[in-house]
Protein backbone atom coordinates (compact mmCIF):
# COMPACT_ATOMS: atom_id res chain seq x y z
CA UNK A 1 0.00 0.00 0.00
CA UNK A 2 1.66 3.26 -1.05
CA UNK A 3 2.07 5.99 1.54
CA UNK A 4 0.78 9.40 0.50
CA UNK A 5 1.51 12.58 2.45
CA UNK A 6 -0.72 15.63 2.42
CA UNK A 7 0.66 18.99 3.54
CA UNK A 8 -1.92 21.51 4.77
CA UNK A 9 -1.58 25.30 4.29
CA UNK A 10 -0.47 25.57 7.93
CA UNK A 11 2.43 23.22 7.25
CA UNK A 12 1.03 20.25 9.15
CA UNK A 13 1.43 16.92 7.35
CA UNK A 14 -0.69 13.79 7.47
CA UNK A 15 0.52 10.56 5.88
CA UNK A 16 -1.87 7.79 4.98
CA UNK A 17 -1.64 4.32 3.50
CA UNK A 18 -3.69 4.30 0.32
CA UNK A 19 -5.92 1.28 -0.30
CA UNK A 20 -5.10 -0.54 -3.55
CA UNK A 21 -6.98 0.89 -6.53
CA UNK A 22 -7.99 4.22 -5.03
CA UNK A 23 -7.07 7.67 -6.28
CA UNK A 24 -5.07 10.21 -4.29
CA UNK A 25 -8.40 12.02 -3.81
CA UNK A 26 -10.15 8.93 -2.42
CA UNK A 27 -7.21 8.21 -0.11
CA UNK A 28 -7.71 11.74 1.23
CA UNK A 29 -11.47 11.59 1.70
CA UNK A 30 -11.36 8.08 3.19
CA UNK A 31 -8.82 9.32 5.74
CA UNK A 32 -10.61 12.56 6.50
CA UNK A 33 -7.90 14.87 5.12
CA UNK A 34 -9.08 18.49 5.18
CA UNK A 35 -9.25 20.62 2.08
CA UNK A 36 -9.67 17.94 -0.55
CA UNK A 37 -13.28 17.91 -1.61
CA UNK A 38 -14.74 15.60 -4.21
CA UNK A 39 -17.79 17.54 -5.32
CA UNK A 40 -18.26 15.49 -8.46
CA UNK A 41 -17.22 12.24 -6.80
CA UNK A 42 -13.93 11.93 -8.69
CA UNK A 43 -15.17 12.23 -12.25
CA UNK A 44 -13.05 15.14 -13.54
CA UNK A 45 -16.13 17.35 -13.63
CA UNK A 46 -15.21 19.97 -11.04
CA UNK A 47 -11.90 21.18 -9.62
CA UNK A 48 -12.34 20.74 -5.91
CA UNK A 49 -9.65 18.06 -5.53
CA UNK A 50 -6.97 20.38 -6.87
CA UNK A 51 -3.54 19.81 -5.26
CA UNK A 52 0.07 20.84 -5.89
CA UNK A 53 2.17 17.74 -6.45
CA UNK A 54 5.54 18.07 -4.74
CA UNK A 55 7.24 14.79 -5.72
CA UNK A 56 7.22 11.98 -8.31
CA UNK A 57 6.31 14.49 -11.00
CA UNK A 58 7.54 12.31 -13.85
CA UNK A 59 5.62 9.29 -12.58
CA UNK A 60 2.19 10.86 -12.73
CA UNK A 61 -0.27 9.79 -15.42
CA UNK A 62 -0.59 12.20 -18.34
CA UNK A 63 -3.06 15.00 -17.88
CA UNK A 64 -6.19 14.74 -20.05
CA UNK A 65 -7.60 17.71 -21.97
CA UNK A 66 -10.54 17.81 -19.58
CA UNK A 67 -8.33 17.94 -16.50
CA UNK A 68 -6.25 20.65 -18.13
CA UNK A 69 -9.35 22.73 -18.87
CA UNK A 70 -10.76 22.23 -15.38
CA UNK A 71 -7.54 23.28 -13.66
CA UNK A 72 -8.05 26.76 -15.10
CA UNK A 73 -11.28 26.84 -13.12
CA UNK A 74 -9.79 25.76 -9.81
CA UNK A 75 -10.36 28.10 -6.88
CA UNK A 76 -6.70 28.28 -5.92
CA UNK A 77 -4.00 29.60 -8.28
CA UNK A 78 -2.96 27.13 -10.94
CA UNK A 79 0.75 26.26 -10.84
CA UNK A 80 2.87 24.02 -13.07
CA UNK A 81 2.53 21.21 -10.53
CA UNK A 82 -1.25 21.54 -10.19
CA UNK A 83 -3.25 18.35 -10.68
CA UNK A 84 -6.74 17.07 -9.92
CA UNK A 85 -5.90 14.28 -7.53
CA UNK A 86 -8.97 12.22 -8.45
CA UNK A 87 -7.11 11.57 -11.70
CA UNK A 88 -4.03 10.13 -10.02
CA UNK A 89 -4.32 6.47 -8.99
CA UNK A 90 -2.33 5.60 -5.86
CA UNK A 91 0.08 3.08 -7.38
CA UNK A 92 3.16 1.54 -5.76
CA UNK A 93 5.30 3.73 -8.01
CA UNK A 94 3.89 6.71 -6.12
CA UNK A 95 4.82 5.38 -2.69
CA UNK A 96 6.06 8.38 -0.72
CA UNK A 97 4.11 10.88 -2.85
CA UNK A 98 3.80 14.33 -1.32
CA UNK A 99 1.00 16.67 -2.24
CA UNK A 100 0.25 20.14 -0.94
CA UNK A 101 -3.34 21.12 -0.25
CA UNK A 102 -4.11 24.63 -1.55
CA UNK A 103 -5.42 27.39 0.70
CA UNK A 104 -9.24 27.19 0.73
CA UNK A 105 -10.99 30.22 -0.80
Amino acid at each position, binding site marked *: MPTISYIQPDGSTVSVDAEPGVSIMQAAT*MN*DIDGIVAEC*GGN*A*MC*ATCHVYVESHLDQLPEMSEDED*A*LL*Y*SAAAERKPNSRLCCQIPATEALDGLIVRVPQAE
Partner: protein
Amino acid sequence: MSEQIVIVGAGHGGFQTVVALRQYGYVGKIVLIESDTHLPYQRPPLSKAFMKGDISAEALCFKPERYYGDHNIERISKQATAIDRPNRRVVLDDGSTVPYMHLILATGACNRPLTIPGSDLDGVHGLRTLTDAAALSHRLKTATSVAVIGAGFIGLEFAAVARAAGATVHVIELAGRPMARAVSEPVSAFFTDALSGTGIHFHFNQTTERIIGVQGSVTGVETSQGESLEADLVVYGIGVTPNAQLASEAGIKCANGIIVDECLTSSDPDVSAIGDCASFPQADTGELIRLESVQNAADQARCVAKKLTKGAERFAVVPWFWSEQGNLKLQIAGLSTGHDQTLVLGDPAANRYSVLCFKNSVLIAVESVNAPADHMIARRILSSTIRPSYEEACSKAFTLKSWEASTKESPAQHEAESARTHLCG
Protein backbone atom coordinates in the same frame (compact mmCIF):
# COMPACT_ATOMS: atom_id res chain seq x y z
CA MET B 1 -32.72 23.62 26.53
CA SER B 2 -30.49 21.36 24.50
CA GLU B 3 -27.56 22.94 22.70
CA GLN B 4 -27.27 20.29 20.05
CA ILE B 5 -27.97 20.55 16.33
CA VAL B 6 -30.08 17.70 15.01
CA ILE B 7 -30.20 16.64 11.37
CA VAL B 8 -32.80 14.22 10.03
CA GLY B 9 -31.54 12.46 6.92
CA ALA B 10 -27.96 11.43 6.13
CA GLY B 11 -27.99 11.73 2.37
CA HIS B 12 -25.89 14.32 0.59
CA GLY B 13 -27.67 17.24 2.28
CA GLY B 14 -27.54 15.86 5.81
CA PHE B 15 -23.96 14.66 5.51
CA GLN B 16 -22.64 17.91 4.03
CA THR B 17 -24.36 19.83 6.83
CA VAL B 18 -22.32 17.85 9.35
CA VAL B 19 -19.05 18.47 7.48
CA ALA B 20 -19.77 22.16 6.93
CA LEU B 21 -20.75 22.78 10.57
CA ARG B 22 -17.40 21.41 11.70
CA GLN B 23 -15.50 23.24 8.95
CA TYR B 24 -17.09 26.55 9.96
CA GLY B 25 -16.13 26.00 13.57
CA TYR B 26 -19.23 24.65 15.25
CA VAL B 27 -17.96 22.66 18.23
CA GLY B 28 -21.24 21.59 19.86
CA LYS B 29 -22.81 18.16 19.60
CA ILE B 30 -24.39 17.16 16.30
CA VAL B 31 -26.92 14.35 16.04
CA LEU B 32 -27.52 12.71 12.65
CA ILE B 33 -30.70 10.64 12.43
CA GLU B 34 -31.05 8.27 9.49
CA SER B 35 -33.10 5.09 9.20
CA ASP B 36 -30.85 3.58 6.48
CA THR B 37 -28.35 1.56 8.51
CA HIS B 38 -25.48 1.95 6.05
CA LEU B 39 -22.82 4.53 6.90
CA PRO B 40 -23.73 7.70 4.98
CA TYR B 41 -22.85 7.20 1.33
CA GLN B 42 -22.74 8.91 -2.07
CA ARG B 43 -25.67 8.45 -4.41
CA PRO B 44 -24.40 9.34 -7.92
CA PRO B 45 -22.22 6.25 -8.33
CA LEU B 46 -25.20 3.95 -7.60
CA SER B 47 -26.38 4.25 -11.21
CA LYS B 48 -22.87 4.42 -12.66
CA ALA B 49 -19.64 2.90 -11.31
CA PHE B 50 -21.33 0.90 -8.55
CA MET B 51 -23.97 -0.46 -10.93
CA LYS B 52 -21.19 -1.51 -13.32
CA GLY B 53 -19.41 -3.27 -10.49
CA ASP B 54 -16.37 -0.97 -10.69
CA ILE B 55 -16.48 0.06 -7.05
CA SER B 56 -17.53 -1.53 -3.78
CA ALA B 57 -20.18 -0.37 -1.33
CA GLU B 58 -17.41 0.57 1.12
CA ALA B 59 -15.91 2.98 -1.39
CA LEU B 60 -19.25 4.81 -1.55
CA CYS B 61 -19.10 5.92 2.08
CA PHE B 62 -18.45 9.62 2.50
CA LYS B 63 -16.29 8.96 5.55
CA PRO B 64 -15.16 5.94 7.55
CA GLU B 65 -17.05 5.13 10.74
CA ARG B 66 -14.45 6.63 13.03
CA TYR B 67 -15.01 10.07 11.48
CA TYR B 68 -18.29 10.46 13.34
CA GLY B 69 -16.97 9.59 16.80
CA ASP B 70 -13.80 11.62 16.18
CA HIS B 71 -15.88 14.71 15.39
CA ASN B 72 -18.49 14.38 18.17
CA ILE B 73 -21.25 13.39 15.79
CA GLU B 74 -23.80 10.95 17.14
CA ARG B 75 -25.39 8.74 14.48
CA ILE B 76 -28.81 7.36 15.32
CA SER B 77 -30.00 4.61 12.99
CA LYS B 78 -33.70 4.95 13.67
CA GLN B 79 -36.72 6.40 11.91
CA ALA B 80 -37.85 9.86 12.98
CA THR B 81 -41.62 9.66 13.34
CA ALA B 82 -42.60 13.12 14.58
CA ILE B 83 -41.35 16.58 15.43
CA ASP B 84 -42.55 17.80 18.82
CA ARG B 85 -42.10 21.48 18.04
CA PRO B 86 -43.37 22.99 21.29
CA ASN B 87 -40.73 20.96 23.15
CA ARG B 88 -38.13 21.21 20.41
CA ARG B 89 -37.47 17.53 20.06
CA VAL B 90 -37.64 14.81 17.42
CA VAL B 91 -39.55 11.64 18.27
CA LEU B 92 -38.09 8.34 17.02
CA ASP B 93 -39.83 5.08 16.12
CA ASP B 94 -38.94 3.51 19.44
CA GLY B 95 -40.59 6.36 21.34
CA SER B 96 -37.31 7.97 22.42
CA THR B 97 -36.80 11.68 21.82
CA VAL B 98 -33.89 13.81 20.63
CA PRO B 99 -33.91 17.42 21.80
CA TYR B 100 -32.66 20.15 19.46
CA MET B 101 -31.55 23.74 19.53
CA HIS B 102 -31.92 23.78 15.77
CA LEU B 103 -33.32 21.08 13.51
CA ILE B 104 -32.34 20.53 9.89
CA LEU B 105 -34.64 18.42 7.75
CA ALA B 106 -32.68 16.75 4.96
CA THR B 107 -35.21 14.01 4.42
CA GLY B 108 -34.87 13.88 0.65
CA ALA B 109 -37.47 12.36 -1.60
CA CYS B 110 -38.78 8.91 -2.37
CA ASN B 111 -39.43 7.22 -5.70
CA ARG B 112 -42.89 7.55 -7.13
CA PRO B 113 -44.03 3.93 -7.07
CA LEU B 114 -44.99 1.93 -10.10
CA THR B 115 -48.61 0.83 -9.75
CA ILE B 116 -49.50 -0.71 -13.11
CA PRO B 117 -50.53 -4.37 -13.19
CA GLY B 118 -47.51 -6.60 -12.69
CA SER B 119 -45.51 -4.03 -10.70
CA ASP B 120 -45.08 -6.47 -7.87
CA LEU B 121 -43.54 -9.21 -10.01
CA ASP B 122 -40.04 -10.34 -9.21
CA GLY B 123 -37.62 -8.45 -11.45
CA VAL B 124 -39.24 -5.02 -11.19
CA HIS B 125 -36.86 -2.53 -9.57
CA GLY B 126 -36.63 1.10 -8.55
CA LEU B 127 -33.29 2.77 -7.93
CA ARG B 128 -32.68 5.22 -5.15
CA THR B 129 -30.75 3.67 -2.28
CA LEU B 130 -27.71 1.47 -1.89
CA THR B 131 -30.01 -1.44 -1.07
CA ASP B 132 -31.87 -0.85 -4.36
CA ALA B 133 -28.64 -0.55 -6.31
CA ALA B 134 -27.09 -3.70 -4.85
CA ALA B 135 -30.19 -5.75 -5.70
CA LEU B 136 -30.39 -4.28 -9.18
CA SER B 137 -26.68 -4.69 -9.93
CA HIS B 138 -26.95 -8.32 -8.96
CA ARG B 139 -30.04 -8.85 -11.13
CA LEU B 140 -28.41 -7.11 -14.08
CA LYS B 141 -25.67 -9.76 -14.19
CA THR B 142 -28.14 -12.33 -15.51
CA ALA B 143 -30.57 -10.07 -17.39
CA THR B 144 -30.82 -10.47 -21.15
CA SER B 145 -33.51 -7.92 -21.96
CA VAL B 146 -34.25 -4.82 -19.91
CA ALA B 147 -37.25 -2.51 -20.04
CA VAL B 148 -36.63 0.93 -18.56
CA ILE B 149 -39.74 2.90 -17.69
CA GLY B 150 -38.97 6.61 -17.77
CA ALA B 151 -36.30 8.38 -19.81
CA GLY B 152 -35.17 10.70 -17.05
CA PHE B 153 -31.62 10.81 -15.72
CA ILE B 154 -31.88 7.66 -13.63
CA GLY B 155 -33.53 5.66 -16.40
CA LEU B 156 -30.96 6.70 -18.98
CA GLU B 157 -27.95 6.19 -16.74
CA PHE B 158 -29.14 2.70 -15.96
CA ALA B 159 -30.02 2.02 -19.60
CA ALA B 160 -26.47 2.96 -20.63
CA VAL B 161 -24.95 0.59 -18.05
CA ALA B 162 -27.34 -2.23 -19.01
CA ARG B 163 -26.57 -1.76 -22.70
CA ALA B 164 -22.81 -1.76 -22.05
CA ALA B 165 -23.31 -5.03 -20.15
CA GLY B 166 -24.74 -6.52 -23.33
CA ALA B 167 -28.45 -6.60 -22.56
CA THR B 168 -31.16 -5.62 -25.04
CA VAL B 169 -32.53 -2.35 -23.72
CA HIS B 170 -35.90 -0.73 -24.33
CA VAL B 171 -36.69 2.69 -22.85
CA ILE B 172 -40.36 3.63 -22.64
CA GLU B 173 -41.14 7.31 -22.13
CA LEU B 174 -44.39 9.23 -21.82
CA ALA B 175 -43.01 12.43 -23.35
CA GLY B 176 -41.82 12.82 -26.90
CA ARG B 177 -38.18 13.07 -25.92
CA PRO B 178 -35.82 12.03 -23.10
CA MET B 179 -35.12 14.18 -20.01
CA ALA B 180 -38.00 16.39 -21.17
CA ARG B 181 -38.39 18.14 -17.80
CA ALA B 182 -34.79 19.14 -17.51
CA VAL B 183 -33.05 19.68 -20.83
CA SER B 184 -33.54 21.57 -24.08
CA GLU B 185 -34.77 19.95 -27.26
CA PRO B 186 -31.34 19.96 -28.92
CA VAL B 187 -29.84 18.04 -25.98
CA SER B 188 -32.73 15.57 -25.97
CA ALA B 189 -32.21 15.01 -29.69
CA PHE B 190 -28.44 14.56 -29.37
CA PHE B 191 -28.88 12.05 -26.56
CA THR B 192 -31.57 10.11 -28.39
CA ASP B 193 -29.21 9.81 -31.36
CA ALA B 194 -26.14 8.95 -29.32
CA LEU B 195 -27.86 6.40 -27.08
CA SER B 196 -29.76 4.86 -30.00
CA GLY B 197 -26.38 4.54 -31.66
CA THR B 198 -25.31 2.19 -28.88
CA GLY B 199 -28.33 0.00 -29.59
CA ILE B 200 -30.81 1.31 -27.03
CA HIS B 201 -34.38 1.23 -28.35
CA PHE B 202 -36.54 4.24 -27.49
CA HIS B 203 -40.35 4.17 -27.36
CA PHE B 204 -41.58 7.74 -26.96
CA ASN B 205 -45.11 9.03 -26.36
CA GLN B 206 -46.02 5.76 -24.71
CA THR B 207 -46.84 4.51 -21.27
CA THR B 208 -46.28 1.03 -19.98
CA GLU B 209 -49.71 -0.46 -19.52
CA ARG B 210 -48.78 -3.68 -17.78
CA ILE B 211 -45.92 -5.90 -16.83
CA ILE B 212 -46.38 -9.58 -17.55
CA GLY B 213 -44.70 -12.51 -15.93
CA VAL B 214 -44.50 -16.24 -15.59
CA GLN B 215 -44.42 -17.94 -12.19
CA GLY B 216 -44.07 -14.60 -10.47
CA SER B 217 -41.12 -13.33 -12.50
CA VAL B 218 -41.22 -10.66 -15.16
CA THR B 219 -41.10 -11.75 -18.81
CA GLY B 220 -42.23 -8.63 -20.64
CA VAL B 221 -44.06 -5.32 -20.78
CA GLU B 222 -46.94 -4.03 -22.89
CA THR B 223 -47.11 -0.40 -23.96
CA SER B 224 -50.03 1.93 -24.64
CA GLN B 225 -49.35 1.66 -28.36
CA GLY B 226 -49.79 -2.08 -28.21
CA GLU B 227 -46.09 -2.97 -28.32
CA SER B 228 -45.10 -6.15 -26.55
CA LEU B 229 -41.50 -6.06 -25.39
CA GLU B 230 -39.60 -8.98 -23.92
CA ALA B 231 -37.97 -8.17 -20.61
CA ASP B 232 -36.54 -10.20 -17.77
CA LEU B 233 -35.75 -7.04 -15.82
CA VAL B 234 -37.81 -3.88 -15.49
CA VAL B 235 -36.39 -0.70 -13.98
CA TYR B 236 -38.57 2.33 -13.38
CA GLY B 237 -37.54 5.92 -12.82
CA ILE B 238 -40.72 7.95 -12.99
CA GLY B 239 -39.95 10.76 -10.63
CA VAL B 240 -39.88 11.33 -6.91
CA THR B 241 -41.99 13.00 -4.26
CA PRO B 242 -40.43 15.03 -1.45
CA ASN B 243 -40.40 13.53 2.05
CA ALA B 244 -42.26 16.34 3.76
CA GLN B 245 -44.60 14.36 6.00
CA LEU B 246 -42.59 14.89 9.20
CA ALA B 247 -42.78 18.64 8.64
CA SER B 248 -46.38 18.85 7.47
CA GLU B 249 -47.63 16.66 10.30
CA ALA B 250 -45.87 18.99 12.72
CA GLY B 251 -47.63 22.00 11.26
CA ILE B 252 -44.68 23.35 9.24
CA LYS B 253 -45.79 24.90 5.93
CA CYS B 254 -45.35 22.60 2.94
CA ALA B 255 -46.24 22.71 -0.76
CA ASN B 256 -44.15 20.65 -3.20
CA GLY B 257 -41.83 20.02 -0.25
CA ILE B 258 -41.01 21.91 2.92
CA ILE B 259 -41.31 25.63 2.22
CA VAL B 260 -38.29 27.67 3.29
CA ASP B 261 -37.25 31.29 2.90
CA GLU B 262 -34.13 32.62 1.18
CA CYS B 263 -32.06 31.58 4.21
CA LEU B 264 -33.52 28.06 4.07
CA THR B 265 -35.52 28.55 7.28
CA SER B 266 -38.98 26.95 7.38
CA SER B 267 -42.12 28.48 8.86
CA ASP B 268 -40.63 27.42 12.22
CA PRO B 269 -37.55 29.56 12.95
CA ASP B 270 -35.82 26.65 14.71
CA VAL B 271 -36.21 24.35 11.71
CA SER B 272 -34.36 24.51 8.36
CA ALA B 273 -34.90 22.28 5.35
CA ILE B 274 -32.49 21.50 2.52
CA GLY B 275 -32.03 19.39 -0.57
CA ASP B 276 -34.61 17.29 -2.40
CA CYS B 277 -37.27 17.94 0.28
CA ALA B 278 -37.05 21.74 0.29
CA SER B 279 -39.04 24.28 -1.72
CA PHE B 280 -37.04 27.53 -1.72
CA PRO B 281 -37.20 30.93 -3.46
CA GLN B 282 -35.13 31.01 -6.64
CA ALA B 283 -32.53 33.78 -6.42
CA ASP B 284 -33.46 35.60 -9.67
CA THR B 285 -37.24 35.47 -9.53
CA GLY B 286 -38.27 34.71 -5.95
CA GLU B 287 -40.44 31.92 -7.27
CA LEU B 288 -40.47 28.76 -5.14
CA ILE B 289 -38.66 25.82 -6.69
CA ARG B 290 -37.46 22.44 -5.55
CA LEU B 291 -34.29 21.02 -7.09
CA GLU B 292 -33.35 17.37 -7.20
CA SER B 293 -29.58 17.45 -7.41
CA VAL B 294 -26.62 16.49 -5.28
CA GLN B 295 -25.02 19.89 -5.74
CA ASN B 296 -28.13 21.69 -4.55
CA ALA B 297 -28.22 19.55 -1.42
CA ALA B 298 -24.53 20.19 -0.74
CA ASP B 299 -24.74 23.93 -1.42
CA GLN B 300 -27.82 24.31 0.77
CA ALA B 301 -26.12 22.31 3.51
CA ARG B 302 -23.25 24.80 3.47
CA CYS B 303 -25.69 27.72 3.53
CA VAL B 304 -27.47 26.41 6.62
CA ALA B 305 -24.19 25.61 8.34
CA LYS B 306 -23.06 29.20 7.71
CA LYS B 307 -26.34 30.47 9.10
CA LEU B 308 -25.80 28.54 12.31
CA THR B 309 -22.17 29.53 12.76
CA LYS B 310 -21.40 32.84 11.07
CA GLY B 311 -24.76 34.39 10.32
CA ALA B 312 -27.48 33.97 7.73
CA GLU B 313 -26.80 34.44 4.05
CA ARG B 314 -29.24 34.47 1.18
CA PHE B 315 -29.07 31.21 -0.74
CA ALA B 316 -28.19 32.27 -4.25
CA VAL B 317 -26.01 29.57 -5.76
CA VAL B 318 -26.30 28.96 -9.49
CA PRO B 319 -27.89 25.52 -9.75
CA TRP B 320 -25.74 22.93 -11.44
CA PHE B 321 -26.15 19.29 -12.20
CA TRP B 322 -24.45 16.43 -13.97
CA SER B 323 -25.34 13.06 -15.45
CA GLU B 324 -23.14 10.39 -16.96
CA GLN B 325 -24.70 8.14 -19.59
CA GLY B 326 -22.20 5.79 -21.19
CA ASN B 327 -19.43 8.02 -22.56
CA LEU B 328 -21.62 11.12 -22.48
CA LYS B 329 -20.91 13.48 -19.60
CA LEU B 330 -23.72 16.00 -19.38
CA GLN B 331 -23.31 19.03 -17.13
CA ILE B 332 -25.95 21.70 -16.72
CA ALA B 333 -25.39 25.18 -15.29
CA GLY B 334 -28.50 27.21 -14.46
CA LEU B 335 -32.12 26.24 -15.07
CA SER B 336 -33.37 26.20 -18.64
CA THR B 337 -37.08 26.31 -17.74
CA GLY B 338 -38.86 28.89 -19.85
CA HIS B 339 -36.09 29.30 -22.41
CA ASP B 340 -37.20 30.57 -25.79
CA GLN B 341 -34.01 30.27 -27.86
CA THR B 342 -31.11 27.86 -27.98
CA LEU B 343 -27.71 27.99 -29.64
CA VAL B 344 -25.38 25.04 -30.15
CA LEU B 345 -21.63 25.64 -29.83
CA GLY B 346 -18.88 23.12 -30.43
CA ASP B 347 -18.87 19.80 -32.21
CA PRO B 348 -22.02 17.71 -31.72
CA ALA B 349 -20.76 15.10 -34.18
CA ALA B 350 -17.85 14.48 -31.83
CA ASN B 351 -20.19 14.50 -28.80
CA ARG B 352 -18.39 17.58 -27.48
CA TYR B 353 -20.64 20.68 -27.37
CA SER B 354 -22.63 23.12 -25.30
CA VAL B 355 -26.19 24.28 -25.80
CA LEU B 356 -26.81 27.82 -24.63
CA CYS B 357 -30.39 28.50 -23.48
CA PHE B 358 -31.75 32.04 -23.59
CA LYS B 359 -34.90 33.68 -22.28
CA ASN B 360 -35.75 37.12 -23.69
CA SER B 361 -32.27 37.07 -25.20
CA VAL B 362 -30.64 36.61 -21.77
CA LEU B 363 -28.50 33.53 -21.16
CA ILE B 364 -30.17 31.46 -18.42
CA ALA B 365 -28.60 28.03 -18.71
CA VAL B 366 -25.84 26.11 -20.46
CA GLU B 367 -25.99 22.38 -21.10
CA SER B 368 -22.55 20.95 -21.83
CA VAL B 369 -21.65 17.48 -23.05
CA ASN B 370 -18.03 16.35 -22.63
CA ALA B 371 -17.11 20.03 -22.25
CA PRO B 372 -16.28 20.57 -18.58
CA ALA B 373 -14.36 23.78 -19.23
CA ASP B 374 -17.47 25.33 -20.85
CA HIS B 375 -19.49 24.20 -17.85
CA MET B 376 -17.17 25.84 -15.32
CA ILE B 377 -17.15 29.09 -17.28
CA ALA B 378 -20.95 28.96 -17.60
CA ARG B 379 -21.31 28.64 -13.84
CA ARG B 380 -19.22 31.76 -13.37
CA ILE B 381 -21.10 33.69 -16.04
CA LEU B 382 -24.48 32.70 -14.63
CA SER B 383 -23.54 33.87 -11.16
CA SER B 384 -23.07 37.34 -12.58
CA THR B 385 -25.60 39.70 -14.14
CA ILE B 386 -23.20 40.31 -17.02
CA ARG B 387 -24.12 37.70 -19.59
CA PRO B 388 -23.83 37.27 -23.35
CA SER B 389 -26.98 38.02 -25.31
CA TYR B 390 -28.28 35.72 -27.99
CA GLU B 391 -27.04 38.16 -30.66
CA GLU B 392 -23.53 38.21 -29.23
CA ALA B 393 -23.44 34.44 -28.95
CA CYS B 394 -24.45 34.08 -32.60
CA SER B 395 -21.30 35.79 -33.85
CA LYS B 396 -18.91 33.43 -35.64
CA ALA B 397 -15.97 33.73 -33.29
CA PHE B 398 -17.97 33.45 -30.07
CA THR B 399 -16.88 30.96 -27.44
CA LEU B 400 -17.72 31.09 -23.73
CA LYS B 401 -14.00 31.24 -22.98
CA SER B 402 -13.29 34.20 -25.27
CA TRP B 403 -16.40 36.02 -24.08
CA GLU B 404 -15.46 35.61 -20.44
CA ALA B 405 -11.91 36.80 -21.18
CA SER B 406 -13.27 39.88 -22.97
CA THR B 407 -15.54 40.80 -20.04
CA LYS B 408 -12.47 40.93 -17.86
CA GLU B 409 -10.79 43.28 -20.31
CA SER B 410 -13.70 45.65 -20.88
CA PRO B 411 -16.35 45.19 -18.20
CA ALA B 412 -18.13 48.48 -18.86
CA GLN B 413 -19.02 47.56 -22.44
CA HIS B 414 -20.54 44.29 -21.32
CA GLU B 415 -22.46 45.80 -18.45
CA ALA B 416 -24.11 48.15 -20.90
CA GLU B 417 -25.02 45.30 -23.24
CA SER B 418 -26.47 43.28 -20.37
CA ALA B 419 -28.46 46.26 -19.14
CA ARG B 420 -29.90 46.66 -22.62
CA THR B 421 -31.24 43.11 -22.66
CA HIS B 422 -32.21 43.37 -18.95
CA LEU B 423 -32.01 40.37 -16.73
CA CYS B 424 -35.43 39.34 -15.48
CA GLY B 425 -37.75 39.43 -18.48
